[in-house]
């Protein structure tokens, strides 16, 4: 079970959080201009990376705020947590 650093509340146990998967998937500006396959990429397709991954978490049993984690899916190491408006923290050098 991770310890997650909520950018608003500080470090808390994972049990206080929920995730909705990959972060930085922006809803298309004008969906009507997309073809079915492009729209499907937004709705269903994910990078599902083995390695450093940016994902969206919410402090659901806490402040209720959404934020992003930079976490390594191959080791579960967490490199950074940041608010949606923050600049992207860089990927750590080590691959795992």
């Amino acid at each position, binding site marked *: *079970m*991770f*310890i997650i650093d909520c950018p608003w509340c500080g470090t808390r*146990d*994972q049990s206080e959080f929920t995730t*909705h998967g990959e972060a930085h998937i*922006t*809803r*298309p500006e*004008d*969906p*009507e201009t*997309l073809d*079915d396959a492009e*729209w499907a990429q*937004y*709705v269903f397709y994910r990078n599902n990376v083995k390695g450093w991954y940016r994902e*969206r978490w*919410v402090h*659901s049993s806490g402040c*209720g*705020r*959404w934020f992003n984690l930079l976490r390594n899916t191959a*080791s*579960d*190491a967490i490199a950074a947590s940041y608010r*949606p*408006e923050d600049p992207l923290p860089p990927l750590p050098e080590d691959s795992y």
Partner: protein
Amino acid sequence: MQRSEQGGHIDRNTPISFRFNGHNYTGFDGDTLASALLANGVQLVGRSFKYHRPRGIMTNGPEEPNGMVQLETGAYSQPNILATMLPLYEGLEAKSQNCWPNVHFDLLSINQLFSALLPAGFYYKTFMWPKDWWLWYEKWIRRSAGLGVASKLPDPDHYCHVHEHTDLLIIGGGAAGLTAALAAGRLGAKIVLADERNAMGGSLLNEPSADVADSEIAVQIDGLSPKEWRDQTLAELQAMPNVRLLPATTITHYGHQNHLVGAQRIDEKQKPSGQRLRQILWRFRAKQVILATGAIERGPVFGNNDRPGIMTSGSLRGYINHYGLDAGRNVALFTNNDSAYRTALDLLRIGSTVQIIDYRSSTDSPDARLALQRGAIIQMNAAVTNCSGGARIREVHSHQLNPDDTLDKKSKRTVSADILAVSSGWTPTVHLWSQAKGTLRFREDIQGYVPDTISCAALAAGSCNGDNTLSQCLQSGHQTGIEAAKRLGLSGAEPTLATIHAPSDQHEQIVKPLFIVPAAQDKAKRFVDVQNDSTAAGIALARREGFRSVELVKRYTTTGMGTDQGKLGNMNAIGILADIAGKPIPEVGITTYRPPFTPLSFGALGGASRKGLYEQIRPTPIHHWHVDHGAIFEDVGDWKRARYYPQAGEDMYQAVQRESLAVRTTCGIFDGSTLGKIDLQGPDCVKLLNMLYTNAWDKLPVGRCRYGIMLNEHGMIFDDGVTSRLDTHHYHMTTTTGGAASVLGWIEEMLQTEWRDWQVHATSVTDHWAVVALNGPKARDILQSVTDTAIDAETLPFMAYTEANIAGIPARIFRISFTGEIAFEINVPARYGLALWQALMVAGKEYGITPYGTETMHLLRAEKGFIIVGQDTDGTVTPDDAGLDWLVSKKKPDFLGKRSLRRSDSARSGRKQLVGLTTNDGKTVLPEGTHIIETATANPPMQTLGHVTSSYYSPVLDYPIAMAVLRNGRARMGETVYAVNPADNSSTAMTVCDPVFYDKEGGKARG
């Protein structure tokens, strides 16, 4: 074995009586069940898993493969309890398991005769004929497997969880753990020291007590005997406010970021009664962890190495020195290292005749010299190859080794022995390190894996880190304690370590690799995993059959898969595999260490969440009224909702018929408090609603309500409800009962991540408001009688909202209807919910006001063709499928899910569409879920048109009604279709119709 006159750390003044296999015995306080049984001469304790061979106690620790008992009876009965870990208590009752009729005469030991037919994995090769007989074979296989018996009764005991944050968690209270705790504790670290034993001290307790110790060789720490030093150290730690000692606590899990879990057994020395807390599950977050988990001594693999009377050397030493046992007249020792000579000296001290078979060609151990002087017979360069005896060992056979370590076949030697102590090295207990994804490295000098690297804040000390003498353990614990304190940022004068006097530790320890002794000319079974009856032949067979990976060999032979999880045998299996493959051990690899370290009580894992404390129910503010008036409830999520209110003699059907007629003719009252409610405020509410719902919200005036459906991005209906405009920038949204949390979650996610500049606040107010719905022709009369606010049809028309004071309670009234009747949904602060309900019941009495539950609500809305999300839709239904295309704005440029509606499959014609169905016979009410076909005869497998989503007998119409989703349904109006009864594939003729059955024009609700 028997109890000696003196020595040991048991309390000879406190006798304890217990029963084993129906016989009464006596032990002493401080005994384990195992030591007490051995003291009473009980050697045979159980039968093995597969061959039902007689088995005795082999160790004195958690690695014990055989010494398992069925503890206690009735609801307190527990299978597979390790006698070696169980403190003796007054009245303890235990028996052997996996044997019938008893441990001395076990019918299934007949398996031994057929053992040639039962090699590793034999069951994969047979039992395939006749084809359908596997279930029959399996029944017998299951019966002979399985060890102990589960109590069929609910566990009467109590458990709880404790969460603890600490600077430093030290696991293991032996020599290294104690010096680590002392050092770090003196430097001020907040420490928890956990040890799996009731009595901390680890191997310190295996040293002779002061009264019997031999001054020439005795270990002294600060001038004290190990036991005395241990007592003094524990007292010092106990007195430190920053140290918490947790005896009888096994840490079983090591997870992410130093999250460790273990169970503490409380009051183990009392017979279980259900009156006390039995176990605590500790969940730690530690800044630093020190593993001082010790090492487990293993014995080598040789012929009949499972006989009762064979014991690991250190364990035998423990039984002598810790529990004050006499070992027996003749003891043989088989070793490849020096530690066994400590045992030899203790044996000599208590008067045993000692034969030592040493696998090595030489040793410079001072203990060995002394043992020789004191009369031990030492046979160097030799190996035990077999032993004989039945229910207990009698003779030990050995051979001399040739220079290439093969057997000198002519050199067979036999000695008689009551006990054979074995030692082929110590396996560091690296389970937790490995669980935490730490890496291991193989150390040739100790022939074992030790901790290498780890990414979390953990250190290892003592014999789990490869230290193989007491002095080293004490020293490395001390150093590691200081290191942990440093890592914690604690400074201060470095504490000093006790002075250690351990004469026999001062020479180079030599371990000669030994996992399996070459077979002599006999066919004796050579066990690798004693508990699972996995043999060296089995491992060789697996290898021969192509199972190359150590993981595959484990699975094929079941090596290491018993309750001990291979603590004794796995290293031997790896050694044997390396031998067969001709590879060095590190290239063979090791199997994964999985949690828990030792079996962990499910009761402790469940904690207090049992016996009515599992998942609190969510009652409405009016719940107790429903209870008092005989309501039958249904679970919806965590809510309890009143389903119907049966009167005397009524079943559900009758109650629902009565309740729904009352709504249609006078007035019904309904508790709608579970409805999801979200308060929306801010200038961008309209923008938000326009994105969430499929219809347009720009023109909804203040004081008006509107129904809407929400789609997920996949274009399917996922929630619906009415949202009302309370003020210019203030809306009250309702959702389904089950959808409340996810709708709010979604709104928040979109607002915080996608539309971050939109100014809307969304707040869940589900629990803030109690909702009482009045429905029926008399609803207005009743409501008007308790309020001064005008609620006539002109002032408060259909789909309008007003604030009012009802029976003295400030309320919000929404004129919305889920029944098709004149209806008011009255929201009051939750604490007034019951008062409002009662006031309305009083006011409505003369009209015959009737409480109705969810079942009637479902019937009434079905008469109107209103969908219930989750019942008439299932996540595959588009607005058009549900007949709600009119709710989808054609003008809005975008809303959630809009784009998906255009996809080829979502937009195609002929999809399943919501329609009504009536039964042609006018009587039959179809079960919900019934499937519909085109033809009168059902011949499965066949295509279905769709299924019935809702079905009731309508009392107001006096015929059955149903809603269904049918392929191309709306084009089938008036067609006859058939509903299939799976019991006999008979069918019922139905007619497809409009799903609105009652008051199609909708005039009643507007009235």
